[in-house]
């Protein structure tokens, strides 16, 4: 296939045969048993999964949601070459602001998320205003996710994902841009900050991590950390983190070690895939009231994804095997970093921990919200991003000539 440097306009169009195949499988579903009064203690409850399957079978309309996504999110594909991995066709959302000097922003999703997570923040970020900056927004489907191709060889790790992101932005004409992400988006934007800081000029994340400050590296932080007692919120954060790193960690253990074994049931059973993802949608959010349509649309993106659901789990294996989480923990000091803290994120650490990650210029703490911040708390997240990059903000004018405002913008009142 000849590589193409131009964007191809793209509309999701799942084939009739795929839709039919799903219906056949939903008709043949065999459910497991469940203990009495299990609730959520053992995992996704049977009555929830049965209800969702019944709706998926008859009631839920993929075509309706497909059309809505196509109508709402301007999508494209582009071939991106990756050193050692050939060319991957990358699917992405791209919406420009009416503000000429808008800040180019790359939104990077994670697992079990998708490009859809940008949906609520897109109109807010691209809105024009005298008060807050505007952004041109690019939200890709990571390789192996959504409607992007998956890599075919092993070893596609954080720096490969970052390479795809960076090349995509440059080829769209954004030689300098800022990045935002949570989940794998956090790790990938860290890789961007480490390797491509010439282009990626600032990073904001809603999933701050970091480790306890070590005296040898961070004397002041260490002392602060050692002397200041933990607040109630911080203690609650530790409890949440303990849950995630303990009973909440099974999926990660499996996906980091034997993703292919898991991949067979995720590919073959809609109920299996649904239960696997739905559990995260519930456990990782802060009491977010998912509608059945939302759940099934998120899961359908995985079911109908170009490379299939199994491909989405391999990032865990690659990053674990290459120990890349440790690598990207090293501080990034040459570009501004910003963090938004949500109480029901998976690992909730004291502020001092994330400050070890480098040049942290922006921090914001919230009273509610979980892992999927862009979906759960879009206005709050966008407020934070606007504050970080806006007038008087700590990352204001991080890209010359891209302040987020046009000079002489006529007030529209």
């Amino acid at each position: 296939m000849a590589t193409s440097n131009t964007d191809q306009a793209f509309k999701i169009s799942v084939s009739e045969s795929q839709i039919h195949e799903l219906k056949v499988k939903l008709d043949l579903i065999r459910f497991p048993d469940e203990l009495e009064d299990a609730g959520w203690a053992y995992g996704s409850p049977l009555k929830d999964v049965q209800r969702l399957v019944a709706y998926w079978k008859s009631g839920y309309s993929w075509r309706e949601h497909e059309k809505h996504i196509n109508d709402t999110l301007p999508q494209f594909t582009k071939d991106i070459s990756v050193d050692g991995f050939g060319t991957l066709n990358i699917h992405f959302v791209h919406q420009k602001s009416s503000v000429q000097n808008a800040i180019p922003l790359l939104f990077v999703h994670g697992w079990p998320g998708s490009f859809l997570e940008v949906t609520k923040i897109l109109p807010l970020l691209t809105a024009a205003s005298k008060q807050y900056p505007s952004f041109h927004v690019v939200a890709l489907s990571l390789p192996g996710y959504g409607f992007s191709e998956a890599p075919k060889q092993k070893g596609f790790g954080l720096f490969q994902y970052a390479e795809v992101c960076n090349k995509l932005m440059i080829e769209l004409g954004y030689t300098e841009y800022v990045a935002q992400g949570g989940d794998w988006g956090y790790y990938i934007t860290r890789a961007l900050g480490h390797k491509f800081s010439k282009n990626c000029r600032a990073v904001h994340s809603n999933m701050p991590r970091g480790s306890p400050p070590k005296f040898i590296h961070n004397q002041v932080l260490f002392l602060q950390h050692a002397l200041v007692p933990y607040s109630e919120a911080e203690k609650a954060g530790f409890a949440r983190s303990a849950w995630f790193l303990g009973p909440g960690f099974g999926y990660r253990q499996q996906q980091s070690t034997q993703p292919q074994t898991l991949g067979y049931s995720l590919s073959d059973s809609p109920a299996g895939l649904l239960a696997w993802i739905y559990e995260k949608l519930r456990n990782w959010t802060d009491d977010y009231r998912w509608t059945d349509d939302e759940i099934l649309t998120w899961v359908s993106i995985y079911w109908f994804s170009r490379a299939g659901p199994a491909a989405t789990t391999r990032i865990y294996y690659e990053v674990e095997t290459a120990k890349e989480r440790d690598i990207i923990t090293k501080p990034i000091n040459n570009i501004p970093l910003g963090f938004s803290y949500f109480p029901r994120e998976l690992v909730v650490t004291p502020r001092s921990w994330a400050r070890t990650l480098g040049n942290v210029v922006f921090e914001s703490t919230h009273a509610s919200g979980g892992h999927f911040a862009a979906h759960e708390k879009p206005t709050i997240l966008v407020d934070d991003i606007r504050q970080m990059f806006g007038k008087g903000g700590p990352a204001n004018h991080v890209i010359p000539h891209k302040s987020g405002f046009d000079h002489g913008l006529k007030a529209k009142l």
Partner: protein
Amino acid sequence: MTSTRPVPYKLAISENDVQALKSKLAATRFPDELEGVQWDYGVPLADMKRLVRYWQDGYDWRRHETHINETFPQFTIDIKVDGFGVLNIHHVHQRSKSEHAIPLLFSHGWPGHFMEAAKIIPLLINPPSGAPAFHVVAWSLPGFGFSDAPKKAGFNMAKMAEAGHKLMLALDYSEYVVQGGDWGSSISRQVARLYGGKHCKAVHVNMLSMAPIEPSKNPLLWLQHISTPFSEEEKRMVARTNMFRDKGLGYFHEQSSQPQTLSYGLADSPVGLLAWIYEKLHNWTDNYPFTDDEILDWISVYWFSKAGPGASLRIYYENLRTNPLENGRHEPIYSVPIGFSIFPQELVYVSKANRLLVGNLVYESSHSAGGHFAAFERPEDLVGDLREFHGIGGKAYGVVKGLTGYADD
């Protein structure tokens, strides 16, 4: 209908269920796979495609079902487990011709099943002269095979042991010995812990799950442990243990924490279940040359199981979410003799020093081949060990009153 006497049983999976499986197989949607990865990321795609095709088109469940029915006398019986009501327990019960045979309860684990005993049963019940004979009870654990699954939370190791013990009593074996690997090992030890001395008279295991030696609790043992060099063979086994810990525990963590979430894919997708279990058959054995029939015979028991494959996962949750000390899981046992067969490709190596915490471990036997599913992979070796342990001159000889395993002269 409840029955406190054993009721003869024959496997008879409905034609509906057999056809439903084939329909699902025909509709299988396979994942992609990275180039050249073989087993690194999990079960290879080529293996799954081959097995799915065969399972759908050539494999004959009725052959296996008939074979089990014709070879092994099976029964069901209602067992009342305190707090859990009545569970109908499926089991093979095959008696030796020798009236003085030793009653033995064989407990499988996960992803094992009652037919792991298939090769050892004929050897145990019909020994050569000079070796002891056994009556063998090989049960389907509650939640596995063709036994009922418990309906409430909390069916932990003590409950498993209670069910196994009551099964033996219901079969008129007031005194008996136990054998097991995987969860069957923990269950066997728990039976000895709770009913040892009076009823359970000896324990033999081919796997040990032990707490690590803590320097504060056992300082001398700990010193011994860290200062005794490992042999080459031990180093190999430790390396295998480390690999298992680093790469092989995904299933363990998921099943211990969110078994229900996992169960949907395993109940609904034959290839999903096949991959999940076949990976263990491949990785946990010592290069056992499974035929496609053996693999599919094995997984079909899970697919067609009475409570479904999801129920079998909960043994991890019920035992690993509760405090192991409450179950006395790591306390040593002194009430009965304990025997241990060491197979080189078992998953977890327990050092000599650590073994001193087992309790009355009076018999050990090391082998040069064999892995986790010892009864299936190395039946002669395992039976040889049981004969040594229980036979004349063995440390567990004559533990069951009047039933030495030998006919009177």
